[in-house]
């Protein structure tokens, strides 16, 4: 990208003449004050996560006896993890597998549909294109919950509620993902390349898979990550669609564990809720950290261009 090259270029002859001013626009002086001020936001962002990690090492009584931001004498992280995974015949593992199913099918499918659709909007002229675009963009502003109740009623007539399909099918549509792929494909795939492939006699599908798909890779990773977060974190949709705890995703399961304490005769298992929460967020944090090169460039190219 133009901006990236501007930013990282070596000082050329023109810049070198201004050596007498060491702190130019491109090489500003670092500021301790600004670092400390921004550090406040950093602390705000990280303290709750630290609280979660620290308290995942405590036993249920230890939670009440010790200071929140420091460890208890009893380091119970491993037993907490074991208990979380085995409590109630390992229902947590079942929820984890359900979540993985919803993420793989839902986010994977959503990304696939968004890539195909974004490519079509960016690189083809077809009848009704403007209408397609207007309808999809208009739909972004419709609150998800306005759709939830009628979707539930529709699905229950189709016999889909209380099955994984009820969570997977609505997850397949990501208007934001479509938008991102459209902007990304418009930039990343030169029209001449497509023309050349066509002149060489490649079919549209072959052109898509061999030429276009590799060029869209950073955009695809971005959309995949964001749809993964959306499905992994989904709460409202499964809440209304799924009544059977065997089909709960992690989010619903954790909330059920937490609510258990306030029901009559329910066992309070806050240590398991906290450990389970930690286990729930780790995979996404790891994914974001490992893939940051991809999603940051994808986001830079896509979401902000308007």
């Amino acid at each position: 990208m133009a901006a990236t090259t501007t930013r990282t270029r070596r000082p050329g002859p023109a810049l070198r003449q201004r050596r007498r001013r060491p702190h130019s626009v491109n090489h500003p002086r670092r500021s301790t004050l600004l670092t400390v001020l921004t550090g406040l936001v950093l602390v705000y962002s990280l303290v709750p996560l630290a609280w979660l990690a620290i308290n995942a090492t405590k036993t249920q009584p230890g939670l009440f006896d010790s200071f929140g931001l420091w460890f208890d004498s009893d380091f119970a992280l491993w037993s907490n993890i074991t208990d979380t995974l085995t409590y109630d015949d390992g229902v947590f593992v079942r929820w984890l597998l359900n979540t993985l199913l919803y993420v793989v099918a839902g986010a994977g499918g959503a990304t696939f549909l968004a890539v195909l659709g974004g490519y079509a909007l960016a690189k083809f002229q077809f009848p009704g294109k403007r209408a397609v675009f207007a309808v999809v963009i208009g739909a972004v502003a419709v609150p998800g919950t306005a759709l939830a109740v009628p979707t539930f009623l529709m699905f229950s007539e189709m016999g889909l509620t209380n099955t994984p399909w009820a969570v997977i099918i609505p997850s397949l549509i990501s208007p934001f993902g479509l938008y991102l792929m459209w902007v990304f494909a418009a930039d990343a795939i030169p029209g001449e390349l497509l023309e050349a492939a066509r002149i060489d006699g490649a079919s549209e599908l072959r052109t898509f898979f061999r030429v276009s798909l590799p060029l869209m890779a950073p955009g695809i990773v971005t959309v995949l990550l964001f749809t993964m977060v959306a499905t992994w974190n989904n709460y409202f949709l499964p809440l209304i669609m799924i009544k059977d705890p065997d089909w709960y995703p992690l989010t619903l399961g954790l909330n059920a564990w937490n609510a258990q304490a306030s029901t009559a005769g329910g066992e309070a298992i806050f240590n398991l809720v906290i450990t389970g929460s930690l286990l729930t967020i780790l995979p996404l944090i790891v994914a974001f950290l490992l893939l940051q090169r991809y999603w940051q460039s994808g986001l830079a190219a896509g979401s902000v261009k308007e």
Partner: protein
Amino acid sequence: MTTLSPPTMAGRPAAPPPRKRSTRRRSWVGWGFIAPFMVVFALVFLAPIAYSIYLSLFREQMVGGTSFVGLDNYQRAFDDPKFWEALGRVSLFLVIQVPIMLGIALLVALAIDSGRLYGKNFFRIAIFMPYAVPAVVATLMWGFIYGSRFGLVGNINDTFNVSLPNPLSPDLVLASIGNIVTWEFVGYNMLIFYAALRVIPHSLYEAAEIDGASQLRMITAIKLPAIRGALVIATIFSIIGSFQLFNEPSILQNLAPNAITTYFTPNLFTYSLSFSGQQHNYAATVAILMGLLTMVVAYVVQLRGMRKEA
């Protein structure tokens, strides 16, 4: 977001509009690629919208079954104090929480972009991290922290022998929810602003520096106008998010049953209407009203945001 031409970024060559890309005839090939999306879209977006409009025009009664009632359900919503209370609450949330969140996000983005921070990559990643935390986990976590029993608030009370106001009391619970939402989305919005700041050509800054512009002047005259599009988008998404507020109050209900009513937000209201009250028709009506209102507000924000640019 609602323009019909490909988005462009000020100061940056626009992507060639697809229309001009080639002289090829319009063909149906494109439909082959977009059809799968549109089929599912019709099933999970268009059909439910049509169905809820249909539902909102009927009423189900114990005696006499379902009958067409025209706009009666809408009239009922306009006369319903619960609906207005819920709407008032999310509106209050909107005008306070959204500016705070976007303001912090913008300041952090400007600070990171300025290149004056030590370890700016760490700042960027770490402040973004809460976005990866599910709303359920974020709410449970903050809910525990708010708690007076083993939360931080309780710890502080015990240690310093004070009694802080209970964040989960009816007076404070909305602010507590605002804090959770801010925590979740500051990093996300920061990243959107930061990514927009990155594509501003640096030659502009150099020119401004030669002209002797101050840092503040560079921000107001170059940076903010250049990222106006990102600001408008982030505002619209935040407005949609505020009107849709559901997860956080719904989960906090377990911890603060007295502070959070069944009609705390419009969404909570529709949810309890349809799933505890079995009033599907009225629930659909409230949902449609909220959808319309969201679209109108988003549209107005977009118009205003774009008009200033002209």
